[in-house]
Every structure is written in C-alpha cells, then in structure tokens.
C-alpha cells in the first residue's frame, strides 16, 4: 500500500517563523449575542436570585437540569419548574493545567460534572470546584468522584444572571 501514500510536503515551525513560505494571517473575528432562550433564560434569572431550578417531564418523570422546555426523550413539552438544592455530588472531575490556547495555568482548574440535589439521578451540570488545593497532587488528595459539594455564590449585588453567579462548588463542610 506504500504506493498509495502521497508524500505530503511537511513544514517545520521554523519555516513559518522565519517566513520561508508565504503565509496569510487572518483573524476570524465574530462577535455574538446569544439569546438564552426560554428555559435557560429563567434558569439565569433564578441564579441571580441565588437559586437553582430544573424542569420536570410528567411522562418520564425526569427532573432535568440544565432545564429545557421540551423533553428530548418523550419529545413533548416539559411541564413544570422544580426548585433544586445548591448542593450536589461530583459525578466526575479533572485537574486541568492548560488554558484553551494551551498556555500553562499557574494554578490548575478543577472542572467537574456535578449532579444537583433535587434533580433526577445523574442530572449534572458543568462547573468548577474550589477550595480544593493549588497543585495537582493536593487536589487529587482532596477530590474524588462521589464528593459532596455545595455552591459558593457571588454576593447578591454582584450577580448578573449568569452561570458564573456561582463562583464554584466546594466540599460540603469545608
């Protein structure tokens, strides 16, 4: 099969840095304003008030978070808002040492999927953990799947109706 492999022209980083080949640079700059929509709009308004909410589907009886106005399994409208707790259980987590552009982070971030109390089992949201250490080893020592956590909120007047109105989740009792 070697005959059917085309010997592509590979470039080295220096070829670019030293401009040995012609290059065109163009930023892809798009500014957006995304409408939050009906369900998440309400979710954000409740966050501003310091509350987490979900939506119940009476057919499959799931209480869903993030909330949606339709149940994607039953394919029908969801029926009602359900107040949730601001506590939960870590379903999974990571200790991330790089940023979106692959720069190293001084203090690692701890993203986690957190099952929120009051929603159906396994219904998690993405957020971050805090107060769990400043190095990979320290964090791995303190965090495990199944850890009970609670939201740490921004002070009410600094909330803006955003997922970041919760600063992070921290271990219960910490």
């Amino acid at each position, binding site marked *: 099969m070697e005959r*059917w492999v085309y010997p*592509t022209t590979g*470039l080295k980083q220096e070829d670019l840095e030293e401009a040995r080949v012609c290059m065109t640079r163009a930023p892809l700059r798009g500014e957006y304003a995304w409408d939050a929509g009906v369900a998440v709009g309400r979710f954000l308004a409740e966050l501003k008030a310091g509350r987490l909410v979900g939506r119940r589907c009476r057919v499959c009886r799931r209480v869903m978070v*993030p909330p949606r106005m339709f149940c*994607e399994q039953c394919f029908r409208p969801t029926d009602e808002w359900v107040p949730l707790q601001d506590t939960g259980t870590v379903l999974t987590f990571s200790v991330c*040492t790089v940023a979106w*552009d692959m720069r190293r982070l001084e203090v690692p971030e701890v993203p986690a999927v957190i099952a929120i109390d009051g929603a159906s089992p*396994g219904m998690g949201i993405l957020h971050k953990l805090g107060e769990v250490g400043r190095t990979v080893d320290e964090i791995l020592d303190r965090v495990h*799947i199944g850890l009970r956590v609670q939201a740490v909120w921004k002070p009410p007047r600094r909330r803006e109706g955003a997922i970041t109105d919760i600063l992070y989740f921290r271990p219960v009792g910490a």
Partner: protein
Amino acid sequence: MAGRRVAIVGAGMTKFVRRALETGPELAWEAASKALESCEMTLDQVDAVVLGSAPDAFDGVHMKVEYLSPGAGAWGKPTIRGYVGGGTGVFAAIQGWYHIASGMFDTALVVCEEKMSSCHPHPQAAFNYIFDHTTERPLGPNLLWIFALEMNAYMTKYGLTKRDIALVAVKNKRNAAAHPAAQLGDPNITVEDVLNSEVLAWPVQRLDVSPVTDGAVAVVMAADHVARRVTNRPVWVEGVGWSLDTQYWTNRDLSYPTYVEEAARKAYAMAGIREPRKEIHIVEPYDPFDYKELHHLEGLLLADRGKAAELVALGIANRDGAMPVTPSGGLLGVGNPIAAAGLMKVAELFWQLRGEAGPRQVPGQPKRGLAQAWGDLMQVGTVIILGI
C-alpha cells in the same frame, strides 16, 4: 442486507504531518488521485462524491466542502458533505455505501480532509465553540475538560489505573512505526514514557492524546457489478450503523458509550453477526485518546464493561494477537486529521483484508474487520463492517 451490495475497490491517502504546505484542496486531490490510481479508475467513472471534513474552523474556511470540492473530484458531480464531528470519517464511508446501495449511483469517491494547522493559537481553540454558549462557555472550558472528565468517570467506575490505559498508547504508537504515512510512530516507546509525559488535564497526559495533523484519505466505492470488473479483490460493506446520544452531555453516564453500542448493534444485525468477538477479526476503534479505544471496544461489545484493558495487557489486542486492535497505529500513532483519521481506519481494513498491509499485515488471513469513529459532543457512534 439492505439495498445493493457495495464494495470498496480502491484507497489512497497523504502522509500525515503536523503542518502541510499543501492547501486543503491539494491534500484532498493527493489522496483522491491516489485512490483512483490504485484501482485504475479515472474521474469520469465516478458517479458521485462524498466529502467529509470536521469543523470549518480548523481549515479556517467557511463552507469547507465547497472549498475542498475541486480536490475531491466534485466538479460537475452530485456531491454531499456529511458532518458528525469526529465520527465523520466512518460516516463518509457509510454515506458512500447508501449512495450506491440505494441504486442511485454505481460508483462513489469518498474523500476526507482536515488541515488543522491553520487554526491558531491552537486547534484546540476551535473546540471552545462546542460548549453551550450560556451555561458552559462563561466557565472558560477547553476541549481537554470533556475527555478528562469522561476518562476519570471510566477509570473510577472500573478501578482502572493510568498504567492500564497507557498501554493502549504504547501499542498504537508502536504499530504506527510500520505505517508509511505515520506522523508519530515510535517502535521504542514505553509505558513509562506515557506515564511521565506532561499532565494536561488530569488524568489526561500529553502522550495519552493524539497529535494535531494535516492530511487526507480517500476510498473508491462501487456497486457489485462494477466492483467485480474493477478488481478481483473487492472488500464488501457488510454492515453499517450510527446513532446519537443527547446533547446534554452532563446528563449522561460518561463511563459507557451507549451510542456506540446502538450503532454496533445495527451494524452487526445487518451483517448477520451474532458473536462479534469471534466473527470480527480486526478492529479499528476510534482512539483520539488512549482510554477511548477501550471505551469503544466495550461499546462495540467486543469486551465486557471495564475489561477492555485486559485485552491490551494480555497482548490479545496486539497485531499478532487473537483480536488485533488498531493495527494501523490509529490516531495516536498515524495521526489525527479528524475526518481523515476515521477514513484512514476504513482504508486500513481495506488493505488488511486484501493482504496488502505490508509490515503491518495481521497474520492469519483475516476475513472481516470493523472500523468505528466517534464525535460531535461525545455523542455519536459510527460503525462500518467490511469483509472479503
């Protein structure tokens, strides 16, 4: 079997590299012209073109397939782009199959291309935009998060160690050393190398991850009567399947890829396979990260849940083992130009089943192989079964 019988009759690819001088259309042409040449066909014998490429953001070209189309032989031809993220490479072959199985076309040229190196500051940045813009993106996520979160859920549920999983990276990078197109083949890599590599997002370390790659792969597909005329060794499509899980990924059980099982069951049913562990002789599961290969083997029902790592540890998954897994070297070793990587796995089965894989040849004249890819927001499984 649904529809007409369809075979793959030719395959070609570019060498996979970190950054190619070639533009996307040039890469596509290099692979497509090699595929046609391999079965002595010309463009005027191609009835339809199927193009696969992952997010437009990598090449940095909107409506990428229109851009790539000259290099895929699409000039003046019925052309389609299927897009299911990382699942695209195998899905493109499935689309080639149904174009022909339906009776609409006798031949199809299936081309997958990815030029990830155009995307700065890092191709990973393009993946920021898969996260929900309102409930997730304000947290400043990056792509590694979801893999790391899934890997941790999988490891923890079954009590797997980092070492168990690192063995996959070792196997695949070693296998790739015998692949003429490989970017990262390494015959001497050890499990310590993987375990000592830089932590990116624990439990994911540098050598757990496939590289950033530019490249293209193409296959030629044909209906029964054409295939037999073109070659005396057609490789038949015996089964296909695909399925999608909910987009609400934080509501899923991340330790098991249900959608892969759903896709596999469809493909097995179509191929009349009752005991996949005995009837599949070569597996090319999607391996953008080492744990994904294990995850997918379980979803494909080729290992019990939590037990796929044993196949690797015991050597069963080696090229000369009882069930060779990723003899190509996979995404971890050959490289990961997203859509092209999936089609590379299909091309590998084509070469293996014809006995043309050279130093990578799986012994014992394998008769049937399975290729699988996975993608979107970790929610799609695409499966194809080929046989001779």
